[in-house]
């Protein structure tokens, strides 16, 4: 009886993941898509837990735990990108951390290349 219930739960979670993907494809705004992807991640965690019981191995629960944390970090990073346009690397002032004054060229590695290239172009 428990195997039937676990299989039915796995199929139900798969159906929910499909419905979330449909909303992720249809959603008119970006927030609909982010919400659907968040739900997809949560259902993935549940699916891994149910599959671990069906297989008889307990190792998969560690994977589920890790994936729930990664889902959260991915959501926060995506929200920061959609609301502010970047991941915040340009605003980090390294001189506060190092204790030195920052010059005209910013110290983050991505914009340092851009500053050097723009200096070459204007010369």
């Amino acid at each position: 009886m428990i195997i039937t219930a676990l299989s039915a739960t796995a199929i139900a979670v798969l159906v929910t993941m499909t419905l979330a993907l449909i909303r992720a494809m249809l959603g008119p705004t970006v927030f609909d898509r982010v919400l659907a992807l968040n739900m997809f991640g949560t259902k993935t965690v549940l699916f891994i837990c149910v599959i671990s019981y069906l297989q008889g191995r307990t190792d998969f629960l560690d994977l589920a735990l890790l994936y729930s944390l990664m889902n959260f970090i991915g959501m926060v990073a995506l929200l920061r990108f959609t609301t502010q346009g970047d991941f915040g690397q340009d605003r980090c002032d390294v001189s506060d951390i190092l204790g030195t004054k920052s010059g005209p060229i910013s110290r983050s590695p991505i914009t340092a290349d851009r500053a050097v290239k723009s200096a070459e172009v204007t010369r």
Partner: protein
Amino acid sequence: MIFASLLAESSSLAADGGQSTSFAIENLLTIIAVVSLVGGSLFSIIGGIGICRLPEFFSRMHGAGITDTMGAGLILIGLMIYSGLSLVTFKLMVILFFLTITSPSSCHALAHSALAKGLKPELDLKRGPVERQPNASEARS
């Protein structure tokens, strides 16, 4: 299945002598676990249908919330009841704890950023559904 074999072993050991009550309790626990699993899967499907059919973004968040709290909670509680007291139950409790903390806070951050971007809820409690403004032909008559 490791857990099923363990349960069968203990129930067969309990079947002789006056230990038959533990077999009934284990059967009852299995039935409670099955009911929780089925209920959790039903709530997940209801939340999935809600996120597809509701009209606008802030209503769809309600469907996702049903999935994350009742669906995930009931399924994980059913799995915990089925496996009794062990390390597996502790791991499932930690997974449930992280899901309870991270999922509502990401939904809250999402709603906050949607409001900051200017997305307004259409089904407002005080105003009712947004009414269509009368166009020129209706205003004349």
